[in-house]
């Protein structure tokens, strides 16, 4: 759903605060079951100095639901990364730890953080954690609810997938509530096994036993996927240019299929992302930061990868170049790619990308 105050010139001239106030009251009338409202500001709002915080405070008081003003004007910062940080901070200030309903606590309560549930990624990840005997009390922010974000401060551990976008809230919960956080990787069996075992180490023997059982349960299925797809993908090279965790987290999954990531890059990475990236890359791989489309093309010509994983704005350029391409932000409307249930989908999709007969039609047979 798209909900907007649809700013017009008069809002720019006279300010949009009253307009926003009235809009939220109308919305609560039309959607009485809403548990909260997020106000996301675009450039004009910040430039003309509208006070969305004050409006949100008033409306929140009257409507008795959280109203979260997110100062995410497009001109702030150099990329969407600052938007993540700002959103983390506002959730910290307006939602986290502010009441919420949680009937009981257990030693196994965890939050699944930094999973955006693309193609159901969050669900296939949650499934593993639950099978290990952990209790996911909050899932952020794919398929999250206001209550989950409130009660997250009661968890015993934060399990974070996308470090880039949500390390801020984890660090805050560590400082404020003493909740430790742990990074993991649920792409591809090698990393999943490794992650499951490391997560289990943070809990008791029961969880550790469960972890081994889970691995034992899914290993045959993972082996079957590899047996089916690896012969068709062995030795194929991949160039990635994406965001968040994918430039590094997917490398292991490609390697499980016998593929080699010869280059990877972040649209909005920070130093700490690159520190986490170098160790997982094979010798001689290229690492790019904020590449322009010009640069990405140049890398493609020089590296000659068998496939590229990037976004919608790149996709059709590479189709025209005849370079197999997969959207690795949206999973090209497929997914999930996370977890045991995600790996077969990942393998199938990479296979259809690299081995589609359509690429061979571009040039006539001689």
């Amino acid at each position, binding site marked *: 759903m798209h909900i907007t*105050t649809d700013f017009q010139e008069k809002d720019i001239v006279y300010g949009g605060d009253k307009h926003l106030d009235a809009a939220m009251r109308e919305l609560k009338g039309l959607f009485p079951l809403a548990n909260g409202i997020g106000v996301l500001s675009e450039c004009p709002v910040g*430039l003309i100095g509208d006070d969305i915080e004050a409006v949100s405070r008033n409306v929140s008081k009257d409507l008795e639901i959280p109203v979260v003003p997110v100062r995410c004007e497009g001109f702030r910062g150099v990329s969407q990364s600052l938007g993540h940080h700002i959103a983390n901070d506002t959730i910290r200030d307006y939602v986290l730890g502010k009441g919420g309903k949680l009937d009981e606590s257990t030693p196994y309560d965890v939050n699944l953080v930094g999973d955006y549930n693309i193609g159901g990624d969050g*669900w296939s990840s949650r499934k593993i954690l639950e099978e290990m005997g952990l209790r996911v009390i909050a899932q952020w922010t794919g398929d999250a609810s206001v*209550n*989950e974000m409130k009660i997250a401060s009661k968890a015993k551990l934060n399990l974070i997938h996308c470090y880039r976008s949500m390390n801020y809230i984890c660090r805050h919960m560590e400082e404020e509530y003493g909740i430790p956080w742990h990074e993991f990787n649920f792409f591809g069996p090698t990393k999943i096994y490794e992650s499951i075992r490391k997560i289990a180490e943070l809990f008791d023997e029961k969880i550790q036993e469960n972890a081994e059982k889970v691995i034992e349960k899914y290993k045959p299925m993972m082996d079957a996927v590899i047996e089916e797809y690896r012969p068709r993908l062995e030795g194929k090279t991949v160039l990635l240019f994406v965001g968040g965790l994918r430039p590094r987290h997917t490398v292991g999954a490609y390697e499980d299929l016998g593929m080699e990531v010869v280059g990877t890059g972040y649209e909005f990475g920070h130093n700490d992302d690159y520190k986490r990236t170098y160790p997982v890359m094979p010798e001689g791989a290229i690492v790019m930061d904020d590449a322009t489309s010009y640069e990405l093309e140049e890398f493609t010509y020089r590296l000659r990868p068998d496939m590229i994983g990037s976004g*919608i704005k790149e996709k059709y350029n590479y189709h025209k170049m005849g370079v197999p391409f997969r959207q690795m932000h949206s999973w090209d409307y497929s*997914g*999930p790619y996370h977890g045991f249930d995600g790996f*077969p*989908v990942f393998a199938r999709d990479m296979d259809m990308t690299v081995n589609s007969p359509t690429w061979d039609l571009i040039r006539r047979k001689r």
Partner: protein
Amino acid sequence: MKVLDHNELFKHPEYIEQFENKKKFEDMASSEKVKEVAEWTKTEEYKELNFARKHVKINPVKACQPLGALLCAGGFEATLPFVQGAQGCAAYFRSHLARHFKEPSTAVSTSMTEDAAVFGGMNNMLEGLENAYTLYKPEMFAVFTTCMAEVIGDDLGAYVRSARGKGAIPDDLPVPFAHTPSFVGSHVTGYDNMMKSILSTLTEGKKGEPNGKLNVIMGFDTYTGNYREMKRILDIMGVKHTILANISDTYDSPNTGKYKMYPGGTPLADAADSANAIGTVALQKSSTHKTIEFIKSEWVQKTATVIPIGIRNTDKFFDEVSKITGKSIPKEIEDERGRAVDAMIDSHPYVHGKRFALTGDPDLLLGLISFVMEMGGYPTHIICTNGDKKFKEEAQELLSESPFGIHGQVYTNKDMWHLRSLMFTDPVDLLIGNSYAKFLWRDVGTPLVRIGFPLFDRHHLHRYPIIGYQGVLNLVNWIVNTVLDELDRESMYTSSFDVIR
């Protein structure tokens, strides 16, 4: 190996159980309560509440000015669309067009941030022009703005002069610019502003001998098939012409294994010579107001605006072209007309008397209202978020001219959430709209015919023309076969399920 992706995977019992268990952490309203409220949203009472809102739009059917400017800019040869503003906007325009056309969508942005908010966007523009020129060697920049540049009051003309003065770009490189704030008008306005700027820049000092050609301005038209169809029919008529903002190759280029940044567009020389045409035909009003005014006053040309959607409108189009060019309508075109009418007659029993909800851009709606009435359908709920007063009057007049217009109500400045209320309280048989209308299809159950922009969830529809007599065939095809698909689904286990329709 049978692989289950999200389409099937999450229907499995283990996931159903997961979702059920997750609910205890969500503290949401009970499913009975949700159901109760959902039912309430379908009532007359809710409709009144919904129509009383003044301050918020829910699923509006419009995009913003710079998106229209980008489409227009992309229709000119070797032109680099240049966004003066924050970067996220440019990413949105490009993504939106790429998703619709399934083609590359090119633009550069000056990526304005906090410092530009304080000091203005001049440095961004100077460096941007210099960098983009060095890397991408365009023959023209088409500059347009986002909200940010407009709110801080960037002086584009001065910046371009300054860029030339500093040698950032060659003196003779055309750099038309348009102010396209998103808080004024919609994508059709932005298209108009960009077009006027490009034409006035390219034709400056070019007024000379008449070239005997006809200009055709397509307007914010996202059917690449329409551009090819226009060329085809004018070629058949023997009318030499210039299609202005010809996006057909830009957004539908052949796959040769080589990516071309500038795969087509109206040649700049032709655009410059458009001032010397014998006349200009525009196929949309809302996206050409200012441009047509400019052409009338500056080029002193005959102009006509006609939307060739449906039989009568297409007749009008050929009459206008004939009047301006003196060319007669060839038999080949008359035969096409005959075939299109024949198709409508063959299919009319399945469309006659059907009530339609329609949503989209103003000119598309005017064309579709006319076509639906020609088929014997009743345009009923007509929602045009970006329609103005003039559009409303014109649509109402159009409806009043046919007995099939009697149920028609035109709503401007309303959105798809309004339409949802209308479709629940006063149901119709068919819905025409863009891909976002599929949520209405899901909620209300009314079959959807996808016509308009954007079309994200069905492939290749935009490659087929909806204008001219060939366009009529496509419209008949999509509409009648949607009705027939639905008829089969509805009659699946009855004796009415038949092989002949």
